[in-house]
Structure formats: structure tokens, C-alpha cells
């Protein structure tokens, strides 16, 4: 079995377009949530969302490389560029080691809707243009990154709802651990445009605290009224420990555990047992007791039912040791397909900089969250081992454990 380490990370999120900005936002407990006028005009129940700058890639990528990229692919290109740079990777190393790509992505709504509008209007499929099909498929991110960065290893997309990004890292970890790959560019990407969130808005699960956008996402708070959607992209480059040492790569952390499960229940209502099984599996895989976890980056999205079940699951597994817990979704909103990867980046930034980012807007714990040791303010603390949870529709669960390499 190979040890699996993280050698590079990159981030493009509503907390900042790059690691330094994001680290500072996390430390300060800064929210990236805004009121989106376009959603109001479109009749959304909630106009709140995380927002990022539109990337300008003309002059960086050629025309053919650009026109296949959907919105979330543009974000993923930039987060991957940053990760490749800080992993000290170049084309020759990527080629020699047959690096692969595994990203979490579970929609490409704008591209699909825009193409459908053209076909309906013009009655001629050619007029959607040549980039449309490459933007529309769920695998849009991985097919484009593999082409742009000339990757020669594993190449597919993981669609596991809001746990997609976490499962992508988990599958990459598994492939490297078992010697099937030396390095994989993992991550998650999430489109922000309103088309991608209209049917989610329909479920009335989004916060309508429209007068206070930055206070709307409040995981674990008794007065929460729903989640806030968000997006961007995060990249986590993982390699075998041997490969990293051999090429003198920076080693940011070791992935020591991956656990997964399915609730076997309702399509949107979670439960306690499913997450507990994923948590326990990740601890077994890591070969460590629960009390060695210093910090838990919770999935908690700010929905009453989801937070409640996760709080009960965390109390069930970690009740004896009470590690610090926070949900960075209090600042970012719910980054959906990207969240499992971005929250590894956020957690790793905390580990590297010795702090636990706050679960902002937690003012009044409820009966279940009161049992957890939730960081409501930034806590300066050494983190040796952390766990990140990600759950999704259909009852998919993923837990990843990272350890500092000393």
C-alpha cells in the first residue's frame, strides 16, 4: 500500500481567488454571500448566493481550449493552475508520471439550457456551435482539464451530488494507495449561474434572510432558515509519498482515511446511521481512534434537518473527545459539487496556518448542536489530524481524514 500525500492545492471561491485571499477570509470569518438581482428578476424564492469574479481567459488559453469550457470549467482551470504551480509540477513531470484527473461535478445547466434555447428557436442544431457539447456534459471539467494539461492517467468525473468533490479525492486516494496511479489532479467544480439552481430553489430549502445576506448561512444555529447556494472550484493534487519525495515536491498533508456510505433511505432527508458508517469507515481506514481528530470540517449546510442529523452523527462518533467543529459553509454558502474538495482546501489552509476558522452566525445553538464543540470565533490552534464530511442527495456520504506530515 502506498502512502498518499497532497502536494498542491488551488482555490477559486467566493472567499477569494487564490490561497492567500482565502486563508485571510477564513481567519477573519468573512462571508462571500451576496444578493443576486438576476435571481430576483427570474422569480427565485431566494436571491442569495455566493459569487465569484468571471474569469478572463482570453490571452491565457487559445480559442479551442476556451470554447469547450463551461463556467465551472473556467473556475476549475484557474484553481488547477494555482495547484500545479504550488505543487511544482510541470509538463514533463505530469507526462512522465502519467498524472490523471478526477473532479466532482454534477451539472452543467447553463450550457444545456442555452443550447436547447437555440435549437428550439433556430430549428438547426449546428447553430449551437462546436463548444456546446463539451460544455454540456457532466464530465465537462475533466475532459477539458485533461486536454489543456495533457494528462495521461485516469480521466473521469465523479457525480455524487454535494459529496462529488470529496468522493473524487477519495477515489484518487484509493487509486494511488493501491498503486494504480502515481498522481491525480483531484477537485470539485460548481457553476453559480441561476439556471443551475432554479430547481433547487423550488424545494424551498434556500434561506430567505434577504436583508442580511452575510448572516443568512448559519449552520447549527437554532434560527437558521435554509442554505445559500454558492460555487467556484477547488483543486487538490495528490501523489504517492514516494513520488513526492522523489521529485522534491512540497508535502502539505497526508490523506490517511476515506469512508463512504449510502443512507439507504429518503432521497433528500438524511439520517444519522449513514453518516456514522462513513465516519467510522474513514477512522478504520486511517487506523486511528476518534479522539485523535483535532478538527472536524462539518458538512452542515444551514438546513434544520441536515444540520440536526449531522450533529447527532458527530456526537455519536466524537462525543467522548469533542474535537473543534466548524462549518465553513457559514462563510461560503453551499458550494455543492465543489464543496467536498474546497473544504479540504479550507481545512488544509487551517492546518498549515494553525487556526480553526469560525462557524460564523452561530448565535444560538439548538439541542443537538449544543452537544458539539463548535468554534464560533477563530481559534488559534495546532491541527495534527482533521476530518472533513460531505453528504448529498440520495443519501451519499463521504468522510476524508488528513494528517500533518512532520
Amino acid at each position, binding site marked *: 500500500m502506498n502512502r498518499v500525500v497532497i502536494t498542491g492545492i488551488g482555490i477559486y471561491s467566493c472567499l477569494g481567488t487564490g490561497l492567500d485571499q482565502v486563508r485571510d477570509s477564513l481567519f477573519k470569518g468573512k462571508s462571500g454571500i451576496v444578493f443576486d438581482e438576476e435571481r430576483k428578476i427570474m422569480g427565485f424564492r431566494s436571491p442569495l448566493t455566493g459569487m465569484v469574479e468571471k474569469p478572463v481567459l482570453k490571452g491565457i488559453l*487559445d*480559442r*479551442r481550449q476556451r470554447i469547450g469550457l463551461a463556467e465551472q470549467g473556467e473556475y476549475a482551470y484557474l484553481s488547477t493552475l494555482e495547484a500545479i504551480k504550488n505543487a511544482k509540477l510541470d509538463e514533463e513531470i505530469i507526462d512522465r508520471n502519467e498524472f490523471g484527473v478526477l473532479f466532482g461535478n454534477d451539472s452543467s445547466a447553463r450550457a444545456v439550457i442555452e443550447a436547447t434555447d437555440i435549437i428550439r428557436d*433556430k430549428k*438547426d442544431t*449546428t*447553430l449551437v*456551435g*462546436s*463548444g456546446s457539447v463539451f460544455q454540456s456534459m457532466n464530465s465537462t471539467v475533466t475532459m477539458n482539464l485533461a486536454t489543456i494539461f495533457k494528462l495521461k492517467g485516469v480521466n473521469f468525473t465523479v457525480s455524487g451530488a454535494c459529496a462529488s468533490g470529496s468522493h473524487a479525492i477519495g477515489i484518487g486516494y484509493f487509486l494511488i494507495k493501491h498503486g494504480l496511479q502515481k498522481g491525480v489532479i483531484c477537485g470539485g467544480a460548481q457553476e453559480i449561474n441561476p439556471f443551475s439552481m432554479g430547481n433547487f430553489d423550488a424545494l424551498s430549502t434556500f434561506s430567505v434572510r434577504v436583508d442580511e445576506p452575510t448572516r443568512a448561512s448559519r449552520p447549527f444555529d437554532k434560527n437558521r432558515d435554509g442554505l445559500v447556494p454558492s460555487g467556484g472550484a477547488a483543486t487538490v493534487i495528490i501523489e504517492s509519498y514516494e513520488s513526492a519525495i522523489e521529485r522534491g515536491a512540497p508535502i502539505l498533508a497526508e490523506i490517511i482515511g476515506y469512508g463512504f456510505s449510502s443512507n439507504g433511505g429518503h432521497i433528500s432527508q438524511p439520517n444519522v446511521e449513514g453518516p456514522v458508517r462513513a465516519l467510522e469507515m474513514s477512522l478504520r481506514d486511517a487506523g486511528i481512534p476518534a479522539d485523535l481528530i483535532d478538527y472536524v470540517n462539518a458538512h452542515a449546510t444551514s438546513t434544520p434537518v441536515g444540520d440536526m442529523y449531522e450533529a447527532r452523527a458527530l456526537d455519536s462518533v466524537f462525543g467522548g473527545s469533542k474535537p473543534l467543529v466548524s462549518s465553513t459553509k457559514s462563510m461560503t454558502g453551499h458550494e455543492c459539487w465543489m464543496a467536498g474538495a474546497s473544504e479540504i482546501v479550507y481545512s488544509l489552509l487551517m492546518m498549515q496556518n494553525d487556526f480553526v476558522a469560525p462557524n460564523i452566525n452561530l448565535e444560538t445553538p439548538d439541542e443537538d448542536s449544543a452537544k458539539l464543540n463548535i468554534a464560533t470565533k477563530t481559534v488559534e490552534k495546532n491541527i495534527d489530524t482533521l476530518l472533513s464530511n460531505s453528504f448529498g442527495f440520495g443519501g451519499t456520504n463521504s468522510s476524508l481524514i488528513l494528517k500533518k506530515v512532520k
Partner: protein
Amino acid sequence: MKNQEIIEKINGFLVEEFEVDADKITPEANLKETLGLDSLDYVDLVVVIESNFGFKVKGEDFVGIVNFQDFYNYILSKVGEKQEAK
């Protein structure tokens, strides 16, 4: 629209869409090589022609088009047909 105006319009959208230097476009220059067209790019050529002149092009229409003059002639004849139809 006069023929020269149509040609200028064509050159304008080709420069914009395919990101080539305007001075590389001459009547004798090879269309495919100058614009760097692969099989996918012909789809986008159909799109820009439709959005600029309002008529649809079939893939087989490109068979006889080698240089820019051929392309201009093709567009000019199609624009002419469209005007006659009015």
C-alpha cells in the same frame, strides 16, 4: 450592402471569431490554414455566417472553398440570392 462592405464584414467576424491577425487575410490566402480550422471549427463558421447574414450553410458547401476569395464569392452569391428572393 456593397460587395466591399460585405467583404469587410466577413473579415471582421473572421478576425474576431478565429483570433487571427487581420493582415494575414488576403483573397489568395488559404482559408483553412490561415484561420487554423479543424473539423470542429467549420461548425463555428456556420454559426458566425448565420448570425451575420441570416442564412444557413450546409457542410458540403465548403467543399469547393479553398481561399478567402472563394469564401467571399460564396457569401456574396448567397447574399445576392437572398436579396433577389425579397
